């Protein structure tokens, strides 16, 4: 029986020539388009190239089991990989339960460090931490004033040493100050600096060495282009950081630099900063950023289509009903609707290993589907769940109600009974065969 099924399966595959598996040929156009999309989203060109190449190599040969095209499937795989790569388990800040936790915030000029420090202070204050903000940017005019104003707005003390020209001393003193005043979290706002400015990079390294922060966060503007890899790598080499903060995501930047940075430094994105209000800070959701990088157009709708169609929950419920032999007309209707969503019934069923042969006596002609729907919809709730009560008078009522003939109704009930029998048969063997291999995750 297995050989017979395999043969059938192969035949169907041939019918849809070249579309049954992912091949170089049937995904190359899509991959070229995805490359363009990634570049437009400011993913570094080398990262984009390598990423696509890696995904391609791994994905080639993958069976295309659903109604989606190879292009759509590879897009979905790209989306999933993108989500995986940017996601991470350790996105939580490391906060010491006792003693002082020190968080150092670093980055280029204008990336949004000071605003982020204010937001982080509020976020941690809301989590019942006793926060101190340290103004260690002694270069930018009024940077200290800005932090002090932010501190006042959220009622968090700000540590500064007026006239002090040594940022290391300010940072170190602020920690002693926190200890003396019963504060358990210190956020150090450092000056913005260019990664090629040796003097400034030495300064930040020296602050880190002296205060040994528990968390060092690298703040990056989500609008950053190709250069993100250079600055991130340079900062990481000099001052190994623990996490990334993406700012200004309330604009329309696609944030491809996040992928670039993840590629050169394997550190998690810990926060998303979305505006100028002090509570506009979020923990990171990789799937949202993946959608954003891939854009709002066709690509995401492909992905959404694939996901919608692969409705896991629905399938799981049906599978359970199949297994427990509780499959009724309501489920039949649901299944028909689900399958209809996925495209041509026959080709689809044929692609389910085991289903083709098992369903050979069940006529599921596409043209019949709307008729079947009408018939089932004309049944009462009770009739749908207990098909056994469908006697002659009920059947003729259903035929009238659905605008079909009594023969149509009889045929459907016969098919349904056959299907139930088949389900029972499968259950005694392996129900997994039917649904375990179905392209529903």
């Amino acid at each position, binding site marked *: 029986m297995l050989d017979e099924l395999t043969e059938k399966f192969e035949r169907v595959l041939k019918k849809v020539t070249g579309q049954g598996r992912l091949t170089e040929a049937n995904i190359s156009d899509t991959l070229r388009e995805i490359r363009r999309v990634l570049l*437009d989203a400011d993913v570094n060109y080398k990262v984009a190239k390598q990423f696509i190449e890696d995904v391609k190599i791994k994905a080639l040969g993958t069976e295309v089991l659903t109604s989606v095209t190879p292009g759509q499937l590879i897009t979905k795989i790209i989306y999933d990989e993108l989500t995986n790569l940017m996601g991470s388990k350790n996105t939580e800040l490391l906060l010491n339960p006792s003693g002082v936790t020190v968080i150092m915030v670093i980055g280029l000029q204008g990336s949004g460090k000071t605003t982020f420090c204010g937001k982080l202070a509020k976020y941690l204050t809301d989590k019942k931490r006793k926060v101190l903000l340290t103004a260690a940017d002694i270069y930018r005019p009024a940077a200290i004033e800005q932090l002090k104003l932010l501190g006042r707005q959220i009622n968090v003390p700000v540590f500064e040493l007026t006239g002090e020209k040594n940022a290391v001393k300010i940072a170190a003193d602020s920690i002693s100050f926190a200890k003396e005043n019963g504060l358990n979290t210190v956020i150090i706002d450092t000056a913005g600096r260019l990664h090629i400015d040796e003097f400034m990079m030495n300064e930040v390294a020296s602050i880190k060495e002296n205060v040994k922060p528990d968390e060092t966060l690298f703040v990056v503007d989500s609008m*950053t*282009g190709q*250069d993100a890899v250079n600055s991130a790598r340079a900062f990481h080499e000099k001052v190994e950081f623990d996490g990334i903060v993406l700012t200004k995501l309330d*604009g329309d930047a696609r944030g491809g630099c996040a992928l670039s940075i993840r*590629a050169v430094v394997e550190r998690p994105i810990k926060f998303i900063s979305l505006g100028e209000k002090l509570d506009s800070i979020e923990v990171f959701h990789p799937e949202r950023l993946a959608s954003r990088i891939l854009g709002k157009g066709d690509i995401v709708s492909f992905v959404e289509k694939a996901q919608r169609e692969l409705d896991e929950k629905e399938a799981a419920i049906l599978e359970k009903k199949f297994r427990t032999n509780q499959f009724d007309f309501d489920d039949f209707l649901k299944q028909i609707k689900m399958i209809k969503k996925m495209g041509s019934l026959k080709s689809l069923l044929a692609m389910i290993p085991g289903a083709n042969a098992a369903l050979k006596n069940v006529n599921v002609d596409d043209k019949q589907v709307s008729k079947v729907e009408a018939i089932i919809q004309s049944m009462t709730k009770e009739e749908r769940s207990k098909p056994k009560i469908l006697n002659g008078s009920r059947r003729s009522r259903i035929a009238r109600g659905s605008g079909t003939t009594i023969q149509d109704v009889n045929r459907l009930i016969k098919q349904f009974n056959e299907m139930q029998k088949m389900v029972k048969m499968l259950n005694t063997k392996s129900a997994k065969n039917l649904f375990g291999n179905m392209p529903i995750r």
Partner: protein
Amino acid sequence: MSILKSISFTKIKDGLSKTREKLIGKINEAITGKAKIDLETLNEIEEILLSSDIGLDTVEIIIDKVKTSLKNENSRSEETVKKVIKSELSKILEAANTKIDQMSLSKFKPYVILIIGVNGAGKTTSIGKLAYNFRSEGYKVIIGSADTFRAAANDQLEIWARKAGVEIIQGKTGADPSSIVYNAIKTAIDQNYDIVLLDTAGRLHTKINLMQELKKMHTTINKLLPYAPNDVFIVLDATTGQNAIYQVNEFKKYSTPTGLIINKLDGTAKGGVIFQICRENKIPIRYIGVGEEIDDLQVFNPNEFVNALFE
């Protein structure tokens, strides 16, 4: 769908950890000893241009032109390829820069310059530098500090004004920026100033209410001086990627940009996105910012900019 196991980034990392070579070196590598430009070489050139944030659309146009030009060239040496690329890039910038009227500064008094841009692009720093430049040339300059939103923006600009030795008009945090615009221009008219520099709050181009506020500032300026503002400079951060295109397009809807200032060109970012901006909008680049000192603002020179891409 967990079809694939997680992909290691090691390969990508290795590729990137090589010291970033200069463009000429790369083209040297790509071309030297090769009789003709093959597809591989052109792909390499494409990548080199992409790494400067030039953007795929513009890169494709340039490469197309390079291919065409090379067909007519007997020589396909490194020199020729370089020359063709540079000339195409310069053409784009020069076409936009023909619009600059160097004499207009003396035609209007006061001459009003409005500075706009997204957060963190370097507007306030640019104002300080511009004020210093104009002051050094002997103009009587006044600054209007219309960024009433950001904490301590006033203080920051005041420090710059003091360094530049110019006057400044400020308002309270949270005040209507248009009221400060009004005061600054009124003062300039009454007290015979030559140039008014108006700083505005950083606004993401997607924030409609902030963009409306910008429009309102225009109306206020117009009421006092129907010819003003004479210049509206959009300040761009050179590290910004393709989003700069959207920034300019949006600002154009609410304001009348006459020029661009590109900041932070002292880093490793090349600011290549301006090629598409210039190509599409014909907005000239006026100044570039190359550091944090008050004299680190230079007049833009298209050829120098293009040459810097190749250094």
